[in-house]
Each structure stands twice: as C-alpha cells, then as structure tokens.
C-alpha cells in the first residue's frame, strides 16, 4: 500500500524537478490546453454553431485555465520559493503606498522589538554569558556543604594543602587553579595606595584562555621560587589609575614591599576575581600535619568533557572525606562537596530583577503586536474590495493569507531594523543604571550576535501574532458582499468588531499588568529609600585605612596613630566630625557569642560588635536613648565599657535597666578579661544591609584591641566627595605607609550596593510602563477613530433624529471605556496571579498594594478617556447634512 509519506515524497520530488524546468512545463501545458480547446471548438462547429459561439462554449466547458496553470505550478514547482520574491516585492509596494499606516506600525513594533532586544542583550551579557573565558560552562568551584547548613552556605576557601591534594587526586578536572585575595599596598611618590590583588597559581592564564593585550602573560617560569618577581595588571586599573600609560610596561612597582615588574596588561573583559593586579604564586605543601593554615584559596577547576556536576561532586567528596580525617577542624561532622558554576554566586538577587524585567518586556512586545494587529484589521476593512477582486480573479484563500503575511513580515522586518537602533541607543543608557557591584566584573553590556539573532527571530515570529489573525479574518469573506458594499455601511460585521474589541481589551489588560509591576517596584523603591537607617548618610565620607602590620601590632600602636589623625582631620576646614570605626556602615562589624553576667539562658546569645572612637555616634548622628556614649577619657584609657542598641536590650534584657549590666564577649582578641559595662543605649542602626532585620549590636572603644579593619568616618560641611584628597594628604602626613581603601561617600556606598539593583528595575519598568501606556493610547484611539469614521452615516441619522452633541460624546467615550473597564478587570486578575512572582522583590509594601492598584488603574482610565475624546469630539462635530450624504 503506498503510504502517505511516499505520496508526499513523490510530490516533493516532482516539485523539485519541475522547479528547474519551469518554462518548458508551462509551454507544454499551454499547448495541450490550446489543442483541447480547438478540438472542442471544431466539435461544436460540426454541431452547427458559428465559430465564435463554438469558441465561447468551448471555453465555458473547459473552465478556468488560469486556475489550471496555478494548480500546475502548485503541483510542479516550489511555489513558496518562486512566489516569495514576487510577494515580497508586492508587499513592499503595498506598504509604501500607505506610508502613514506603515510608519505607525513599524514604530510600534520597533518599540516592542527594540526594548526586547535591549533587555535580551542585558540578560545574555549578565546571566547567560558573562564570562569571556574558555568554556565558561565547565568552570566550577567546590563548596564544603555541611548537612545542617542552608542551601547557599558552606566553605569555599581552601588551605594550601587542600588545594594541592584536590589538584593531584581528582579524576574530574582537566585543570585546577586557585586564587587568593590580597590587599596590595603600593608605594607611590607621596604616599601609599592600595590595590586589590590576586595571587594565582601556575596555569591560571592558560586556564582562562585569554590572550594578553600588552606585554606578555605569566609564564611557567614566573611561578618558580627565586624567579624575578613580576605581575600582570587589569585593563580597567591600568586605564583609570595609571592613565593607560604604555611606558609602565616592564617598570618596577613596590607591591607589599617587594619590587615587582609589570609584564602585561590584560584585555578589557578580563576581570577574574575582580582583582586589579595578578601575582604569580606556586603552592608548596605545608610541612607536616601541624598548622592547617588559613583556607583563603578559592579553587576552580575545568570539568573534563562529559563529566557532570554530580560526578564531580562524588569524586571530590571522596577526597574531602580523606582530608577531613587529617584536618578535622575544617569540616562539619556530616558534609558533602557541592560543585557550583562560577557566576552563580555573583549575581544572586539581581537575577530576579532581570527576569522580572524580561517578563515585562515580553508583555510589552505582546502589546505592540496587538496594536499592530488592530491597525491591520482596521486597514483590512478598507481593502475589502481589493481582496474580493483578487478572490474573484481566482486567488485562493491560502494565497491571500500569504500575501497579507508577507506584508506583516515586511512591517516586522522594518520594525526590527528600527528596533535594533533603539536597542543600541537604549543599551547605552541602560549601562549607566546597571548596578556594577551586582554583576560579574567581566560583564560588558553590548549588542551581540545572540541579541541580533533574537531581534531577527522576533521579526519572523511576531507576524504570527499580529498578522495571522487579521489575515485569516480578511481572507474569509464572500466576495459578492464586499464588491457590492460601498465599505461605509451602518455597521461593520459583528465578528470583525468583536475581534478588534478583544484585541483592545487584551492590550489594556497587559498594559495594566505592566503598569502595576512598575508601580509596585517604584513604591517599593521609595519605601527602601525611606527606610530609617538610624543614621544620617548624607555628607559622610568613609575610607578604610590599611595599617602596615609590622608597625601596628598592638592596640596601643593603633591608638597612637589614630588619636592625632582624628584630631587633625577634624581640624581640617570643611570637616565637621571625624571618627574611627571597625566597619563600614550600614554593616555592623563582627559577630560574637556573648553572655550577660548574672543571666542564664539555654540558646546561644550572639551580638554584632564594632570598635569605635568616641565621636562615632555624633559623626553619624546616631541617637542616644539612654545613658551616654563614650567619653574621650574612656577611649584613651581603653576602659571596658560598651554601648548597645535597642534591639540588644529588647532581646536580651527587656523590662530591665541595661545600664550597669556587664557583658562578656567571646571573640575579643587580646583582651584578657572581656567583661564590659554597659553605659548607654542608642537607637537601632541598620547593621546587616538595608533589607535584613536589625540585629543586636554592641560598641566598644577601639583602643581595646588592635583587630583590623580600621575605618575613618568623616562628616563634612560640603560635598564629601571633594574632601577625599585633603583627608588622604592628612593621613599620609602622619604615616605615608598607610593605604586608603574602599574610599567612598556613605551615600554612594549604600546606593551602589543596595539601591542600584532595585533602581535598575524601577527605571526599566517605568520606561516599559510608559511605552505600554503610550501604545494603549494609540490602540484605543485608533479603534475608536476607526469605528467612529465608519459610523459617520449612523451618527448623521442620530443627529437628524435629534441626538445632542453631548449624547454623541457619551456614546463614543462610553464605547471606549467599556473596552478599558473589561481590560482593567482582566489586568487586575493577571496582576494578582503574578503577585507571587514580583512579591519577593518588594520591600515595605504588599504585592496587592491598594495605592498602586488604584493609582495605575486611574492612570489608565484617564489616558483611555483622553484617547477616546478626540474621535468623540470629531463625531460630535459631524454635520448631519454632510453625514447623511456620506457614502
């Protein structure tokens, strides 16, 4: 039995052959047809007809020969290929004839496709392919994950011995390298600066597979002990801190006291470990099983091809179990090794924002498609006659649909081309609001191949959304009706109007969803900004001072340096207050176990603790609630006193006067009897970042211990950014060996880390919300304008029968609002369903925040009313006499 497949294959083969002998086939068929017709004619003549009569009858009996040719072509050639060019040319011509329509449609599509392309570029550059390294998908790092630990918890740093053991005994990696962070002090003429350094093990640059930009990469010999010390610099640092000076190559720098030669500058996208300089280091086993060393090495391996993460985890767990018997301190009792991809940890929360924005841009694209669909429908009604004529001439329905789809495709291609331009411009602005601290250092955001490909895909796919339905609608019709109808009847077909209305309702619903999303993020952002930090962040400059370890070992040495520096900085013109602190607000220092003398409890008591000078509270404008803060004498004499926050009191000593109680801190290095008397209570200050709840915190005089870090906090009278140079000079005047790191205004510091991510979401969503609103306005307007124009005759009758202008206004605006209200109901429903998704990103408001919901709904209604007023006024101005004549 000849199968269906065979049937098809034979058909296709015939088409393929036919395609290459097109002309011959056509001529042959013509000859055959002519022959047939003549024989028929002869026959009729023989039956007694005149020649003309016979010929006419013959043609009648033979039927449509044009259609026959069409059918032959369909059977024998690849019609799609052949007609493609023809249809394309025709489509371009048709569109060119109605430039105004095409302009609006292309602009609408360009907004949608452009936004989508831009956001896709960001997602691709940040989430999908942020790393420019060789096979980034196979670069993984192991994490020691205790059975009791949270999902993302676990040790990621390893000791030298562990790194060597893993590198030697694993069966899953092609290569293993390790990186250790190191603050590098760099001596310049007038003082010491600090660079973020990374020690890398042999093979690191081969591992990442990036060439050098200037000079050379580190060679295997550079890692050998006794080799001349060299280092490689990152592009950004070279450009920004050293003015891109090429003469620096092969010059010697004093880094952490060692003279090192700069041998190479990496290309812009190389940013491994976010370091500024890369220093070679070869690891050698620590002797014996004695001291374990500090687990500061971050280990990455390249998975052998075909090895899965699970296989790697199993292999590494075996090695780690063995290590755990040698170094039991470094491992929890029950653990496994997890293998993670680099990048998984960098982006974190920001990924959610990006995916929200991506979803939003999808909605926007849908809105723009619906808008164009509506335009096409409206336009199709004015072309009814054209279609009917085509149908009468023998165009099949499939042919008509194809023609219309081609017009859609041309529009979409135009939209995509313009959209790529929009995306290109938009990305330039997006990069500015991109939170640099939340994305991998290697990320460069630009239009790339995948983004352009996505634009092209959208150009091909969007016509399916906006072109297919109108094409189906307009091709389904009885040509008799259309040919007879003048096209300006009293009412358009119910079916078609229903379809257009549905599109507008859908558009309004999508747009409201978008607006609500943007509104929620905006309100959440405002709430985030208004969060009471417990301190005044404006006019504050902070910088971390890196004291050379050799000269600052004891608390006394540290205090001896700081006391004059604080006094001198405070005396600088423009400085209001200056203080020392052991952490950068809004982070509250180290955590420690603690006891309150005379109190018993079952669970662990913990508190954050921070070492500060007496002016700290005044400098940051932290309010004192009870008792007092440190006196100068208490700090100078390193007395064992403490100030606590309100959270501390409410958690550990509620309903009591905490003043006078004694606290013992477990982790206070170098203090023999760490029993501290509470002398005061201050208001709660954010101490775990902005979005985390405030924890109990305790402050002690910085003179008690020499534990780093040391931070200088300065309140200024003017813009704090301008004061950095003066402050630096003052510090160096006291000790030029001290480096300043993480220098920033407090506002920038908070902003960069905590506001930047949400701000990106707000900015982008607001733009999308506005575009969506604009598109809906156009959509509502065009539908009403169109239907009003069609009803001019009806309006004329109504006016002739005594309808007032106000009635007509109400009629048109009412029709518009009915659509909008329907859309709003659906939009609200969608938003509530999506609430769960966006809810995780919101701070301080609920995902059904009533203010946002009513606000956006009102905004939409107002806009829609405005959009329908123009056609309404036009309707009301209709002169009945003219309208009745209007045919």
């Amino acid at each position, binding site marked *: 039995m000849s199968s269906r497949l065979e049937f098809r294959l034979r058909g296709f083969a015939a088409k393929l052959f036919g395609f290459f002998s097109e002309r011959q086939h056509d001529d042959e068929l013509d000859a055959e047809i002519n022959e047939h017709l003549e024989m028929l004619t002869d026959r009729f003549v023989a039956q007694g007809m005149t020649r003309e009569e016979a010929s006419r009858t013959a043609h009648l009996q033979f039927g449509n020969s044009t259609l026959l040719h069409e059918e032959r072509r369909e*059977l024998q050639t690849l019609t799609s290929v052949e007609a493609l060019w023809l249809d394309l040319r025709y489509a371009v011509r048709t569109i060119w004839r109605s430039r105004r329509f095409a302009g609006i449609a292309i602009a609408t599509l360009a907004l949608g496709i452009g936004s989508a392309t831009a956001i896709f570029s960001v997602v691709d550059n940040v989430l999908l392919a942020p790393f420019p390294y060789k096979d980034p998908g196979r670069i993984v790092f192991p994490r020691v994950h205790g059975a009791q630990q949270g999902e993302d918890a676990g040790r990621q740093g390893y000791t030298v011995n562990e790194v060597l053991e893993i590198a030697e005994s694993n069966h899953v990696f092609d290569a293993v390298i390790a990186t250790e962070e190191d603050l590098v002090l760099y001596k310049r003429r007038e003082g010491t600066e600090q660079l973020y350094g990374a020690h890398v093990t042999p093979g690191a640059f081969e591992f990442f597979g990036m060439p050098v930009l200037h000079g050379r990469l580190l060679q295997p010999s550079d890692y050998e002990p006794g080799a001349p010390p060299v280092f490689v610099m990152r592009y950004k640092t070279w450009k920004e801190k050293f003015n891109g000076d090429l003469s620096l190559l092969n010059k010697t720098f004093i880094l952490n006291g060692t003279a090192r030669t700069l041998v190479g500058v990496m290309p812009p996208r190389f940013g491994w470990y976010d370091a500024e300089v890369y220093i070679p280091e070869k690891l050698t086993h620590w002797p014996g099983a004695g001291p374990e060393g500090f687990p500061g090495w971050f280990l990455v391996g390249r998975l052998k091809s075909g090895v899965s993460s699970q296989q790697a985890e199993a292999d590494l767990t075996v090695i780690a179990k063995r290590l755990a018997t040698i170094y039991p301190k470094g491992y929890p009792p029950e653990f496994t090794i997890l293998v993670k991809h680099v990048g998984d940890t960098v982006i974190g929360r920001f990924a959610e924002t990006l995916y929200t924005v991506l979803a939003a841009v999808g909605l926007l694209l849908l809105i723009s498609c619906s808008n164009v669909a509506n335009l096409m429908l409206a336009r199709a009604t004015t072309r009814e006659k054209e279609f009917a004529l085509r149908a009468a001439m023998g165009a099949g329905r499939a042919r008509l649909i194809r023609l219309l789809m081609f017009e859609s495709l041309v529009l979409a291609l135009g939209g995509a081309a313009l959209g790529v331009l929009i995306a290109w411009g938009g990305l330039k602005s997006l990069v500015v609001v991109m939170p640099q601290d939340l994305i991998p250092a290697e990320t460069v955001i630009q239009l790339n191949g995948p983004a352009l490909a996505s634009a092209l895909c959208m150009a091909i796919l969007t016509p399916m959304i906006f072109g297919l339905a109108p094409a189906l609608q307009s091709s389904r019709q009885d040509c008799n009706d259309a040919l007879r109808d003048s096209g300006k009847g009293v009412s358009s077909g119910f079916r078609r109007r229903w379809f257009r209305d549905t599109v507008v309702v859908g558009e309004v619903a999508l747009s409201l969803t978008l607006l609500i999303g943007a509104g929620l993020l905006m309100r959440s952002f405002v709430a985030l900004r208004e969060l009471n930090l417990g301190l005044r962040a404006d006019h504050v400059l902070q910088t971390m001072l890196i004291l050379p370890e050799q000269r600052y070992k004891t608390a006394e040495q540290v205090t001896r340096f700081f006391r004059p520096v604080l006094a001198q900085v405070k005396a600088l013109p423009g400085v209001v207050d200056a203080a020392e602190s052991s952490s950068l607000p809004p982070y509250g220092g180290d955590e420690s176990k603690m006891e309150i003398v005379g109190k018993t409890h079952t669970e662990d008591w913990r508190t954050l603790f921070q070492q500060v000078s007496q002016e700290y509270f005044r400098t940051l404008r932290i309010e004192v609630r009870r008792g007092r803060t440190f006196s100068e004498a208490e700090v100078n004499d390193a007395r064992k006193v403490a100030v606590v926050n309100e959270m501390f009191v409410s958690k550990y000593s509620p309903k009591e006067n905490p003043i006078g109680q004694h606290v013992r801190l477990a982790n206070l290095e170098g203090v023999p009897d760490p029993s501290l008397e509470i002398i005061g209570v201050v208001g709660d200050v954010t101490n775990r970042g902005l979005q985390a709840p405030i924890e109990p915190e305790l402050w002690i005089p910085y003179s008690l211990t020499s534990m780093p870090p040391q931070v200088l906090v300065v309140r200024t009278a003017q813009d704090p950014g301008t004061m950095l140079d003066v402050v630096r000079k003052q510090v160096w005047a006291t000790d030029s060996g001290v480096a300043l790191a993480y220098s920033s205004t407090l506002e920038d510091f908070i902003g960069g880390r905590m506001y930047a991510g949400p701000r990106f979401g707000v900015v982008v969503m607001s733009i999308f919300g506005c575009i969506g609103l604009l598109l809906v306005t156009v959509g509502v307007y065009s539908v009403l304008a169109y239907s009003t124009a069609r009803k001019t005759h009806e309006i004329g009758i109504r006016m002739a029968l005594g309808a007032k202008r106000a009635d007509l206004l109400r009629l048109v605006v009412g029709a518009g609002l009915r659509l909008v209200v329907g859309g709003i109901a659906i939009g609200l429903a969608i938003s509530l369903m999506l609430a769960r998704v966006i809810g995780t990103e919101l701070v301080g408001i609920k995902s059904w925040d009533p203010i946002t919901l009513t606000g956006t709904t009102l905004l939409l209604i107002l806009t829609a009313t405005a959009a329908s007023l123009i056609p309404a006024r036009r309707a009301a101005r209709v002169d009945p006499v003219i309208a009745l004549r209007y045919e």
Partner: protein
Amino acid sequence: MGTRKSEVLQGTLDLMILKTLHAMGPLHGFGIARRIEQVSRDILQLNEGTVYTSLLRMQQQGWIAAQWGTSENNRKAKFYSITKRGETQLKLETENWQRISDVIGRVLRLEPEG
C-alpha cells in the same frame, strides 16, 4: 435552474480517468474528456480543465505516463497511458469505491420498521 448536473468529486475523477485509460489504452486529454462525457450520458458536469489537474497529479504519483504523439486529425498531442503502479492503484480504488457504494446503497434501501 432546470435539471441540475452532479458535480464531480475530486478523487472520483482520478478513478474515472484511470479506469478509462485502463479500458481504452493511451488517450489524450480531449479523448478522456469525451469518453467520460459519453459514459456518463451528460449526467456529470465536468469542467474539462480539471481533467488536466488530475492528469498532472497522477503523473506525479507515477500512476500514469505521458508521451507526445499525433492525434487522429494530425495534431501534436500528449497521450496518457496507465502504468503498472496505476493498475494497482486502480484495483485498490475500485474495491474501495465498491465497498463504499455498497454501504451507501444498503443504507438507502432501508425501509422504515414496522
């Protein structure tokens, strides 16, 4: 409207042409049309052009073959003949058709019960 002629079903035309070629040997399109007209005694209304569509389609499937020749009044004409594959197809279609027409005949003969 007068007497209404029956329109020819798509697949039926294929069957009729195959049968005609099977019975009459090689024929050109005009001859096929005449033969069908003759046999159907003017009951079937046939747009003779559709014969060619059918011929093209069956040629593609290899059921019939075509050859240029000379017609009875000395004109160049394309002669179609049934192939081996076409004979098989004809047998298959004929059986199929008979089965269906049997069923329909039986249904139409049904008398109301009682």
